[in-house]
């Protein structure tokens, strides 16, 4: 076993060696510009991109003509939300989303707010899921776009996309889903789920960084967008800029692998996740899983370790790359807005750790991490005044703490 161990697969993933292999020829031999229509180098690059489009489309049950390449999911989210809101602004200026979206969605919505739109940020339950009914209630006659993520990036909760898709279809609004964390890991079908716009990213699914895609529905309804980037008219005018051919080839390959191996990989990751969870819960008291365990991404485990501050625990787990919802890991000094939206108390939000288990993690690594977590949590609790007070039977909620 090699140290350090990477267990932060929601942040990014290693590129699968099969993906690297597929990409390599496109750096040196077949390096052409996919927009060069007048020679073999260009044709070859274009062919490679079109093949990748098919591979990506196949993963989500779409047509290759509905895939628009971008620089990544942040751009896809921006293009989907701002592009659709802008295009349909004559129809209305109201957008619906949730409180636990990725910043790329939330900040796109805040931009619209500043420019005169109204946005409803729908609450989620303690289980980290939004209900289709809550979305239905938020939709108004002037609503044009609804944006709900497929899988949350912090707590891994899977949203009821098909139910929300049905609501949006009935109400005639465009439905966008940021599916970055879930596509390639769980089944996702644009027709079954009635989604109109889908953001995807290669590097969350063992592909390279710097490339993403936006699925844009072409039929029932045909979705129109106002482009954000103007230029040479690539991607049918929706996103100008020379295509990143090697990355696109890698993205396609990553989708092909994900599609072929999804079922076995998901089962293996659930097994590893449950192994980690059970070991931690057997050996450490006062730990809590944040968000629904049932509706959850296979590789995600988000746990609060009472009385132990998350960043201190990250420091203690220096041989393991994980992340925390603690304020101290963010520049803002605010604990995770996702955990707070779930109604997790601030004191517990500060103690959360996110384990992101992925394709290359092994059972041996899981056991190592579980043991290390147990040892370090116990050590930090011995240093924690809160743990000592709780053990003495002092109710920490009844103390009048001075907020600072």
């Amino acid at each position, binding site marked *: 076993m090699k140290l350090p161990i990477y267990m932060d697969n929601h942040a990014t993933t290693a590129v699968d060696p099969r993906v690297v292999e597929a990409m390599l020829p496109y750096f040196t031999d077949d390096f052409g510009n996919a927009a060069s229509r007048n020679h073999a180098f260009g044709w070859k690059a274009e062919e490679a991109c079109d093949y990748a489009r098919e591979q990506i489309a196949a993963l989500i049950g779409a047509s290759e003509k509905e895939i628009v390449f971008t620089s990544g999911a942040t751009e896809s989210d921006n293009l989907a939300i701002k592009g659709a809101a802008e295009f349909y602004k004559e129809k209305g200026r109201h957008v619906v989303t949730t409180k636990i979206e990725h910043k790329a969605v939330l900040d796109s919505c805040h931009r619209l707010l500043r420019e005169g739109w109204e946005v409803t940020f729908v609450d989620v339950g303690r289980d980290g899921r939004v209900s289709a009914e809550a979305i239905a209630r938020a939709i108004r006659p002037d609503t044009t776009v609804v944006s709900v993520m497929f899988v949350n990036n912090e707590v891994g909760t899977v949203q009821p996309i098909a139910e929300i898709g049905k609501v949006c279809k009935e109400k005639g609004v465009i439905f966008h889903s940021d599916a970055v964390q879930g596509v390639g890991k769980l089944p996702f079908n644009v027709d079954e789920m009635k989604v109109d716009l889908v953001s995807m990213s290669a590097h969350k699914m063992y592909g390279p960084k710097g490339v993403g895609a936006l699925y844009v529905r072409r039929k029932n309804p045909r979705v129109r967008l106002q482009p954000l980037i103007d230029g040479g008219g690539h991607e049918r005018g929706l996103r100008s800029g020379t295509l990143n051919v090697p990355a696109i080839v890698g993205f396609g390959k990553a989708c092909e692998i994900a599609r072929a191996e999804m079922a076995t990989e998901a089962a293996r990751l659930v097994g590893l996740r449950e192994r980690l969870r059970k070991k931690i819960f057997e050996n450490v008291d006062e730990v809590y899983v944040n968000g629904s365990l049932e509706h959850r991404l296979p590789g995600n485990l988000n746990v609060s370790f009472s*009385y*132990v*501050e998350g960043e201190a625990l990250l420091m203690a787990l220096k041989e393991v790359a994980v992340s925390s919802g603690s304020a101290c890991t963010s520049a803002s000094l605010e604990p995770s807005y996702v955990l707070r939206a779930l109604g997790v108390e601030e004191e517990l939000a*500060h103690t959360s750790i996110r384990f992101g288990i992925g394709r290359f993690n092994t059972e041996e690594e899981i056991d190592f991490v579980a043991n290390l977590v147990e040892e370090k949590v116990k050590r930090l609790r011995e240093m*924690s005044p809160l743990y*000592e007070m709780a053990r003495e039977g002092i109710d920490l909620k009844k103390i009048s703490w001075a907020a600072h």
Partner: protein
Amino acid sequence: MAYSGKVIDHYENPRNVGTLDKNDPSVGTGLVGAPACGDVMRLQLKVSEAGIIEDAKFKTFGCGSAIASSSLVTEWVKGKSIDEAGQIRNTDIAKELSLPPVKIHCSVLAEDAIKAAIEDFRKKRDEKRNHRDTEKQSSDEEEKKRVTA
């Protein structure tokens, strides 16, 4: 976030972790911060009759910088008089540990913890004195009564 070597040293080998008897009249306890803010420090000082800090213990719920700040002050206050210890400033702590700007509040909390522990000790000492004085006063009065009688 990259930490200075000193923060890592104090975090990995914290000095003076532990608990003193909070009911001991020579022990002052300072508990500062809030769980909802992500840091709570408890600093305890054992003070001699002459007002010298003989022992110091801490426990901290907080990030690496918070733990390091409290560990550092336990080293600094030992052997100092309570007045000298009260002069320790957060800027001294931040400088010693090379804390980045977002972690300055950890050093502020450590300064607050020293002050709170000293205040607690003084309060206890004054109560003890008052108690002694009242006892003395009442025995004097009794003496007077006896004399008059």
